[in-house]
């Protein structure tokens, strides 16, 4: 019994473990139903390629949701950033053209985020409305500046920026019938960002400020956090991240189209919530988001590969999402931490119930 409890306590420290379990279970099911696809590395490198932009977006959105806000405008930033990148690549016909494009795209992303942040933090528009409007507006701008047309990135494959961000790393995975299977570099970038953003959320002043603001902005304020400035920085960070994801996507598919990113909104939000980040704010689980994005991104291909009709994809997605969220709630805000507590509730008596905090009213004079 003691050993069991020690084990649970140990497991409870591992962030996102439950979501990782769901993902593992999912892959076990896929491997069982279609081993010919899921026992070979190609499907996984394909996942790494397609999921990475969504994962990067979901990491940024985890921060926004942790602060108790929402950003619906990131799909538009994915499109706009793609255009800015392509435009720069075509107009600066030098070696530095694409690099300037990346920098400009991220600058534009920061600008969009700054406007979102000012609307939300200074003017006080609820973020769901401000960023919904922003989504329409920036898609509109993208369509206008791109004249509604797609643009192909001819010759981008020869640029070093292509290899750096969306190339393949060979020599790690075994060859398949003489054809080398490489790991997409965007997956490495996404993994690196996951680690960096985990550190910023959990080990940096900025992340701590984000958590306290999402928890209770009044507390954050009286403890000396500049709530407004932090929120503006938060939306700017989301804008930069969305722009980066947009450039990755454009590079990867070798073409910009003005509606790119449109299908990302719901899967990216789903990835964050599957990961166990609470909609109420105050708690953000980066590792959960990582596995959540892989769950969402693997479902479609997995269901189809399993030989089930494509008509089932949405339904299975719904089931997996629902189940993940329920598991997260049962074990307590996406962490196993509360599980131990729950064990004590079931088994051992614990101290008296804690007193709920009073409603936030001003004390009478």
């Amino acid at each position, binding site marked *: 019994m003691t050993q069991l409890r020690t084990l649970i306590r140990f497991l409870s420290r591992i962030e996102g473990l439950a979501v990782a379990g769901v993902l593992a279970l999912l892959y076990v099911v896929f491997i069982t139903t279609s081993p010919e696809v899921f026992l070979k590395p190609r499907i996984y490198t394909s996942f790494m390629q397609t999921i990475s932009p969504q994962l990067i977006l979901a990491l940024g959105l985890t921060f926004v949701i942790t602060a108790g806000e929402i950003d619906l405008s990131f799909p538009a930033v994915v499109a706009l950033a793609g255009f800015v990148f392509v435009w720069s690549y075509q107009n600066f016909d030098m070696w530095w053209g694409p690099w300037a494009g990346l920098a400009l795209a991220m600058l534009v992303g920061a600008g969009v985020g700054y406007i979102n942040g000012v609307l939300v933090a200074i003017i006080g528009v609820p973020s769901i409305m401000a960023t919904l409007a922003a989504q329409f507006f920036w898609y509109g701008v993208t369509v206008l500046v791109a004249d509604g047309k797609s643009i192909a990135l001819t010759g981008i494959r020869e640029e070093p920026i292509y290899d750096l961000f969306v190339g393949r790393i060979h020599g790690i995975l075994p060859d398949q019938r003489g054809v080398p299977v490489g790991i997409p570099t965007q997956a490495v970038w996404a993994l690196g960002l996951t680690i960096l953003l985990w550190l910023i959320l959990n080990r940096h002043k*900025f992340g701590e400020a984000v958590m306290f603001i999402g928890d209770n902005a009044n*507390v954050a304020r009286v403890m000396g*956090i500049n709530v407004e400035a932090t929120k503006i920085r938060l939306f700017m960070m989301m804008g930069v991240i969305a722009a980066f994801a947009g450039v990755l996507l454009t590079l990867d598919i070798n073409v910009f189209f003005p509606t790119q990113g449109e299908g990302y909104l719901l899967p990216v939000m789903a990835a964050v919530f599957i990961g166990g980040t609470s909609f109420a704010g105050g708690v953000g689980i980066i590792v959960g988001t990582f596995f959540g994005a892989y769950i969402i991104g693997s479902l479609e291909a997995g269901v189809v590969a399993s030989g089930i009709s494509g008509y089932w994809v949405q339904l299975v997605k719904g089931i997996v999402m629902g189940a993940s969220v329920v598991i997260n709630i049962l074990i307590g805000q996406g962490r196993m931490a509360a599980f131990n507590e729950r064990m004590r509730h079931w088994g051992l008596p614990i*101290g008296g119930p*804690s*007193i709920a*905090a*009073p409603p*936030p009213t001003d004390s009478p*004079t």
Partner: protein
Amino acid sequence: MSNGSSEYALQMVHIEKYFGLVCALKDINIQVGRNEIVGLIGDNGAGKSTFVKILTGVHRPTSGELYVAGRKVDLRTYSVRRAHGYGIETVYQDKSLGEKQVLWRNFFIGRQITLPFGFINVKKEKAVAQEIMMNTIGFRGRGITVDSKVNKLSGGERQGVAIGRAMHFEAELIVLDEPTVALSLKEVNKVINFVHKIKEGGKACVYISHSIADVYEVSDRFIIMDRGEIVGDIKKEDTSLKDLDAFLLEYSHGLRDQKE
């Protein structure tokens, strides 16, 4: 932080506050000694809230002077954030802690111990938080550690954490703004015990309450406010709970006015 020259942690001189034509505070003169616990008592509408808001930098007084540990506070630039710099720490009724956050984060939020590039020195913060829990406020048992989340704590324990934090940051003056309003009797007792720690720790404290029963035991002196004025400044040795109660009752029923 302190120049050590003043015998007072807090001095308020002729502080007045008008909201338009309405006088919320009238000629407030208060001194709080370096290791004195002052109970500030008043019924609803006595001006307690305005008093706290001026002290903590939320409102600017219309006129008057404020000194913290002998240092004159520049009231034109005074703000909630500046108050920390002067050594005024406030424990509120309900907005002192982030509930979903672990204890060690709550101790250092806004004043983190950092490594280069703004990263938090988690190890050190936890060690200091542990030290505050055990030694400064004497948190014992019940499986609460620095890794516990605040929502696992009872109301009284939460106030204890807020008081401990205030003491750790070398406050010249700890302001307790109705810290027991929403608590059960058992939890109120816990808070009272934490206030005793403030006295033992050599700090000064203004304990604001509308209930004499809460502040009587821990206070060295009582300041009684009524309708924006100080109507009583009584040392504990010169009074008893019964006398004080009677005094307050007279005001709350307006009896004093009728006599005069």
